[in-house]
C-alpha cells in the first residue's frame, strides 16, 4: 500500500487535533521536577561518601591497633600517626559532606541548597589540597605495612620488608622524597585557594575537585532559579 504525503499530512492533522483535546502540559511541576533532578543527581554521592567513611574508619582502626603494638618503635609509630591524621581529616571531610547532602535532601529552598552545595565544593577542594600535602606522608605506607606483615608473621608475604628490599636505603629515599615533595605540597596547598581562582589551572582544579555530579547540580540550580525567578 502506498500513501501519498498529503494523506500522511491528514493523519498528522487528525493526530494534532486529538492531542489538542487530550494533552496537557503540567507547567507547575517544572520546579518540582528540577528539584527532584538535583536530589537524584546527588544520590550516588551520598553512597560514595558512606563507602569512603567506612574505608577511612577501617584504616583508622587498623592503624590505631598498629600504633598500640609499636608505640615504642618511633619510626613506625610516627609513620602510623601521620597516616591516622590523614585518614581522620579525610573522615571529617566526608562527614561534613554527608551532612550537607542530608541538608540538600531536606531542603526545598534554592538559597539553602546553594549554601550546602558551596560547602560540599569547598570541602572537596580542601580534600584535594590535603591529599597533595599528604603525598609524602603516604610514603609511610610501605614501612607500616611491612612491619605489620612481620608482626602478623604472614609467611607468604615474609619477603615484603621494605628495609631489606632496599638494603636499608629506604629512609634515605624517603628523606629525598620528603625534601622534594613537602615544599611542592605546601606550594600546591597555598595555590589551590579561591583567592587564586583567576589562574586558569587553579580554576580547573577547583572545578574538577567536586566532580561532574556537583557541577551538574550547580547547572540545575541555575536552571531552577531561571524557572522560579526568570533570571540567575
Amino acid at each position: 500500500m502506498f500513501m501519498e504525503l498529503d494523506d500522511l499530512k491528514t493523519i498528522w492533522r487528525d493526530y494534532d487535533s486529538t492531542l489538542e483535546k487530550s494533552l496537557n502540559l503540567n507547567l507547575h511541576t517544572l520546579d518540582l521536577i528540577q528539584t527532584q533532578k538535583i536530589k537524584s543527581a546527588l544520590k550516588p554521592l551520598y553512597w560514595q561518601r558512606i563507602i569512603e567513611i567506612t574505608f577511612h574508619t577501617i584504616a583508622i582502626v587498623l592503624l590505631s591497633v598498629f600504633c598500640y603494638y609499636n608505640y615504642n618503635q618511633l619510626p613506625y609509630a610516627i609513620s602510623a600517626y601521620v597516616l591516622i591524621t590523614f585518614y581522620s581529616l579525610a573522615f571529617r571531610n566526608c562527614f561534613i559532606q554527608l551532612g550537607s547532602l542530608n541538608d540538600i535532601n531536606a531542603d526545598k529552598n534554592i538559597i539553602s541548597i546553594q549554601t550546602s552545595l558551596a560547602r560540599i565544593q569547598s570541602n572537596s577542594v580542601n580534600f584535594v589540597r590535603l591529599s597533595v600535602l599528604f603525598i609524602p606522608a603516604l610514603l609511610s605506607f610501605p614501612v607500616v605495612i611491612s612491619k605489620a606483615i612481620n608482626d602478623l608473621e604472614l609467611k607468604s608475604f615474609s619477603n615484603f620488608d621494605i628495609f631489606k628490599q632496599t638494603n636499608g636505603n629506604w629512609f634515605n629515599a624517603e628523606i629525598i622524597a620528603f625534601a622534594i615533595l613537602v615544599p611542592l605540597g605546601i606550594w600546591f596547598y597555598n595555590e589551590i585557594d579561591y583567592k587564586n581562582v583567576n589562574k586558569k589551572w587553579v580554576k580547573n582544579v577547583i572545578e574538577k575537585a567536586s566532580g561532574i555530579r556537583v557541577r551538574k547540580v550547580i547547572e540545575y540550580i541555575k536552571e531552577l532559579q531561571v524557572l522560579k525567578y526568570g533570571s540567575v
Partner: protein
Amino acid sequence: MAADKQAFVKRMQENKNIIFKICNSYCSKKEDRDDLAQEIVLNLWKSFAGFTPNFKFSTWMYRIALNVAISFYRKEMRTIKFDAYSEDLIVFSADSDEKVEIEKNLGLLQKFILELNEIDKSIMLLYLDDKSYREIAEITGISESNVATKINRIKNKLKSKF
C-alpha cells in the same frame, strides 16, 4: 516578570502540541520525553524575553525547541540517570493516550520519524505541520534547496514504508 510568566504559560499551553510532537519524535522512552520537554520549556523560557511579535510564535518556538531536541539527541544529555518524577510534565486526559495509538498508519508514521536522523526528523515534523520550504529553511538554518532535496529523499524512504 509575573505577567511575562503568565503570558509564557499561556503561549506554552496554546502550543503544547509542538512540544509533545518534538519530544515524541526524538525520544522513544517516556522518561526521556519528559526530560526533553522540560529542557525545551526551560530554554523557551530563557529566550522568551527576546521574542518579538515580528516573528510568528510557532516559528520562533520550533527553532528553539528543535535546537534543544537535536543537541539532546546528539549529546545524549541524560548522562545522569534520574529517579522517576512524582509528577509528569506531559499528561494525557484519561483513555486518550490509547486513542492516539489506535490509528495504525499514525503508529507507522511515528516509527518512521523516530528512525530518521536528527535533522531529517525536524524537517519531517515541520513538513507535516504544513510549514513552507522557506519556513523550514529559516527554522533549521539550512538552504531552501537543501530542504527540498532532503524532503525528496524522505519521500522516497516513505514509499518503501507505506
